[in-house]
């Protein structure tokens, strides 16, 4: 599989996915 960080779009999409994942982890932990 190609490393998503090799392309700018792969990097940005990875960052967005990570944002959503961390957001829901923190939101769940705060409840």
């Amino acid at each position, binding site marked *: 599989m190609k*490393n998503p*960080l*090799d392309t*700018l779009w792969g*990097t*940005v999409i*990875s*960052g*967005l996915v*990570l*944002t959503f994942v*961390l*957001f829901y982890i*923190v*939101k769940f*932990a*705060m409840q």
Partner: protein
Amino acid sequence: MEFLQLGIGRWLHVVAGVMWIGLLYYFNFVQVPALAAAAKDNTGAGITKHVAPRALFWFRWGAVATWVFGAVILGQHFLEAFLFLKPAYYPIGVGAWLGTIMFFNVWVLIWPNQKKILGMVQASDEEKAKSRRIAFLASRTNTMLSIPLLFFMTASGGLFRTAVWG
């Protein structure tokens, strides 16, 4: 004291952060594609000689200033944020950890390898090729991490505060 810590401290944190992340985006969105294009007609020497060293100077010291002023803002709550001791500090704790990982990448992975790539430190062609890959991936990792970083920096004062205190 609070004005210095939360007013001036936050202002300088944002100024330094714009410098750091602005140059990170410059490297990833402008310089890397520009050097790839310049390699085709051999016109990249000016960028690597005159632009990259200056950009890297402000980039790495911007990272230092951003981290230091971030720590100043956290102040007495530094450990509560970093060790996730209180739920209210979870969002900024995540932001602080992302910023710290990025700071580590700048000083431990990007800068030492860039010195080899730019010829500031002696390195063989093989070492340079390896350094190029490490610095590239560390820089791309920081670009990826900057997206949740900026979310948690801004959301900790907005979205999450509303979620916790209404």
